């Protein structure tokens, strides 16, 4: 479990002073040369066959750009431990590569291989299981201020092993996502919950919660990724922004590494309408 220290502190300071002000400013930023971004997150919803999987290729672009460039023309193959190939082919959406005959198996090891413009990118990952979602409950006096609608999604952490989770809350017709990566250090073997922390939810809003079982390396990656997605620079509680290196290696040119991660997760998901 990670607490976002700076957010807590800043909230407290605001409580004390009720001052401080925020404004949108113009900042000149340098732009690095584009880097390949591989979003290869294999997801297997409990109770489904998990045959259809999508891998997305894109590149980095300037921070204020409104378009994310996609990457076409790659050959993508995922293999299981018995070397069965699952071929991903580019679909109608540029940059989206789809496979329709994937066979997900818990704790199976998969290898990703992407060939693009003469370079070969490789990664290996194990498909992790996740504890089932037991119930989603709505709280009307939630949040730090006790007047927010919050959702708690309960599950029972398997004892006697270290588990890593990604908790994702998405909200219908909203770009905002509530993501948290957690290990079970504080709640090993207990019934615990994830929290939807979006403010100002109202009756009728649709919320989808997804719990992912993730590997330790993916957990480490997500922990950094979620922190920098907030994008803070400066201030007394600034911590240095990290470079988020994933597990995919450019075997042709190691220094020209791609961003993104090859992950394989069992997931459990529920959609809830605020009452």
């Amino acid at each position: 479990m990670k607490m976002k220290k700076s957010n807590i502190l800043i909230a407290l300071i605001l409580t004390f002073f009720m001052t401080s002000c925020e404004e949108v400013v113009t900042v000149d930023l340098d732009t690095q040369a584009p880097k390949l971004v591989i979003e290869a997150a294999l997801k297997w919803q409990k109770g489904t066959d998990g045959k259809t999987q999508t891998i997305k290729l894109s590149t980095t672009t300037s921070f204020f750009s409104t378009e994310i460039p996609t990457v076409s023309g790659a050959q993508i193959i995922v293999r299981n431990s018995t070397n069965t190939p699952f071929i991903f082919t580019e679909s109608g959406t540029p940059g989206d590569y789809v496979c329709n005959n994937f066979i997900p198996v818990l704790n199976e090891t998969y290898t990703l291989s992407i060939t693009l413009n003469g370079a070969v990118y490789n990664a290996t990952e194990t498909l992790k299981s996740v504890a089932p979602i037991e119930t989603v409950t709505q709280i009307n006096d939630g949040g730090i201020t006790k007047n927010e609608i919050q959702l708690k999604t309960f599950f029972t952490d398997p004892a006697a092993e270290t588990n890593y989770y990604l908790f994702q809350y998405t909200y219908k017709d909203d770009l905002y996502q509530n993501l948290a990566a957690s290990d079970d250090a504080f709640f090993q073997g207990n019934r615990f919950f994830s929290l939807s922390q979006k403010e100002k939810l109202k009756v009728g809003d649709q919320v989808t919660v997804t719990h992912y079982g993730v590997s330790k390396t993916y957990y480490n990656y997500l922990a950094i990724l979620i922190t920098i997605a907030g994008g803070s620079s400066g201030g007394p509680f600034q911590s240095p922004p990290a470079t988020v290196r994933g597990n995919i290696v450019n075997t042709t040119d190691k220094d020209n590494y791609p961003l993104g991660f090859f992950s394989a997760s069992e997931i459990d998901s529920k959609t809830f309408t605020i009452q």
Partner: protein
Amino acid sequence: MFLKKISSFIIVLLISSSVFSQEKFTLSGSITDSKSNETLIGVNLYIPELNATVSTNQYGFYSITLVEGKYTVLASYLGYETISSQLTLNESKKLNFALAPSGELLNEVIIKDGNKSTNIRSTEMSINKLSISSIKKMPVVLGEVDVIKSLLLLPGVTNAGEGASGFNVRGGGADQNLILLDEATIFNSSHVFGFFSVFNPDAIKDLKLYKGGIPANFGGRASSVLDIYQKDGNSKSFHANGGIGLVSSRLLLEGPIVKDKGSFLIAGRGSYAHLFLKLSEENKNNTAYFYDLNAKLSYKLNPNNNLYFSGYFGRDVFSISESFSNTYGNTTFNLRWNHLFSDKLFSNFSMIYSDYYYGLDLNFIGFNWSSGIKNYNIKYDFKNYISDDFKLSYGANAIYYSFNPGTIKPTDSNSGINADQLDKKYAFEPSVYISAEHDISKKIALTYGLRYSMFYRLGQSTVNLYENNNPVTFNTDQQIYEKATPIGTTFYGKNKTLKSFGNFEPRLAVSYKLDDNTAIKASYNRMTQYLQLISNTSSPTPLDIWMPSDQYIKPQIADQVAFGYFKNFKDNMYSLEVETYYKKVQNRLDYIDGADLIANDAIEQVILNGRMRSYGLEVMLRKNEGRLNGWISYTLSKSEQQTPGRTAEESGINNGKWYRSIYDKTHNLAVTGSYKQNEKWTFGANFALQTGQPVTYPTGQYSYLGLVIPSYGLRNANRLPTYHHLDVSATLTPRNNEGRKWKGEWVFSIYNVYNRKNAASINFSQNTETGVNEAVKTSIFGMVPAVSYNFKF
């Protein structure tokens, strides 16, 4: 064994010192404020016949040994009338001086004679003294007089901006400052995360900041020492003073226990801004306040023995509804015994306790957390005033630490959080030192000393073992540092030594007098810091924990050289100080990407030992006298950090390159002044301008899991916009004060007159409503007017 060594060491010194004295007599005594009997620190005694000087120590004591003769003794101190006394020294004499405050009228202060050339003669450099009266004249945000913020106007001192805690000295971290309140270590110097300091200005007598040339009696931190003395209390008559401000109010009571022999002082301060919170519907269940208490008892047993007891207790309390609450603060106690073995040998024995406590309740997830540090310290210091040109200081010190890195508890039975106690840590830090002040000739003065510090990390503790002794591994595929998995553990029983260190810390300072008003000086010091603050933010937060050095965390070792040019003009009306310094620190901690520092029981797995260097030029021009006084200070400096890979395969942090530390401020200009218009009005103004804080801006973005992820290049390659503000104040002392017992004054101030919105941070993220990426600047204070009322009787 250890104590034996020390005692034999001291005996040798006592014997050797008696060999020096022949045909000479000693003049000694103490110097106090004539109105309150408060001892005065750093008063200059000047004997024109011999051009000899001595100044009072932190207990107001002085001693000087001279050949038989007739002398004039001038005692002078800023803000006091100079006293001149004629005497015939044909036997050793005690001579106490009681200096009268110079009518509290700075424009009438005449410090012409005695003060001459003391800053020129002495080897002291890189040291700034601030009297509490000058600190009180500076305009401050919300009218809260702030000891720590006043330091930011000095050359070589910066912080991470408005609301940031601590301070950075010569490009060092805030954790590298040793902050002492009556000798007790203060581990967190801030209230409200850094907006205010924990020191009640009414209870403070004096402070001294050592930025370099640190004498051998201090140790334990790499960068600086801030030595703060509490007032003793008035032993002549009962007095009270206090103030009412927008944020907090203060009350101080002092008076005699036994007239002229014993005194007490008790001071309290509390904030009440939280009461305003109750007024708004949204915040009615929230509280946020701080308070602190200072107390001191002083008692003069007889002319050769004084006892002092001092204490401090402070807390910050925050809570938001019932879901979140947070308490933290420092506690200190100190019992001191001053004893004169002879009129030449002064000693002080101290027993000190201090602690820092942090507690956090997160009810909404059922989580309770507490952490802290305690230390028990005994010190015995001696100063032997052997002759007018040779003084010897020596002493020993032993500190026992107990660290609680974290206790985790569920807040109730259905919380789902497991109780946990992170491994408590213990350590012992003994040290001995000896230091000489030696005037070699009329022109050359030397201070040379040596400190030997030791550190024992003690059990009971279970220590993780790692392959190749390496708690951090490097993943060559991903090119990232990762936590290593322990291959086993070793258990150390209670008081068993896990790891020990010993370091010699030489100190040297020399001054060369070019003429009566000009000197050049040089100094070198080595400092060892065995305690590390685990923090990767740009200024410390109350949650940060202290960790002792051990197998995996090495002590920081700092070496600093400094050169200075000092000149007084126009009969000391003006003084100019120019200094340059170069400092390097070994074993500065750096953190691997994504390091989790809260509730981490194996911190060694997320840290790397790096290094730090800083250098700079400081200029300070001060006007010491007259209606208008104040100073201009300018610093040009650089502060950098490097954590190279441990092997050729490893990337290190920031590709192993030197990078700007977050304390790097190229330019730092501060102007402060006060002007006494007449008896009624005094005006003050500050202007501060600093290069923006180093930050890392994104050099691109990409999409992952539907999130906008900024991508970053090299660390700290960018800077926030330049930081500056102008503050003014006006103090009104009503004329009807004269002759009355009750004296009041009004202080009106405006912080940030031209409403500069200084950037505290700039956030780069997606506006989730519009879907567009934005840079959002947060600023904390705009223009802040304030008024406060102070009184005394």
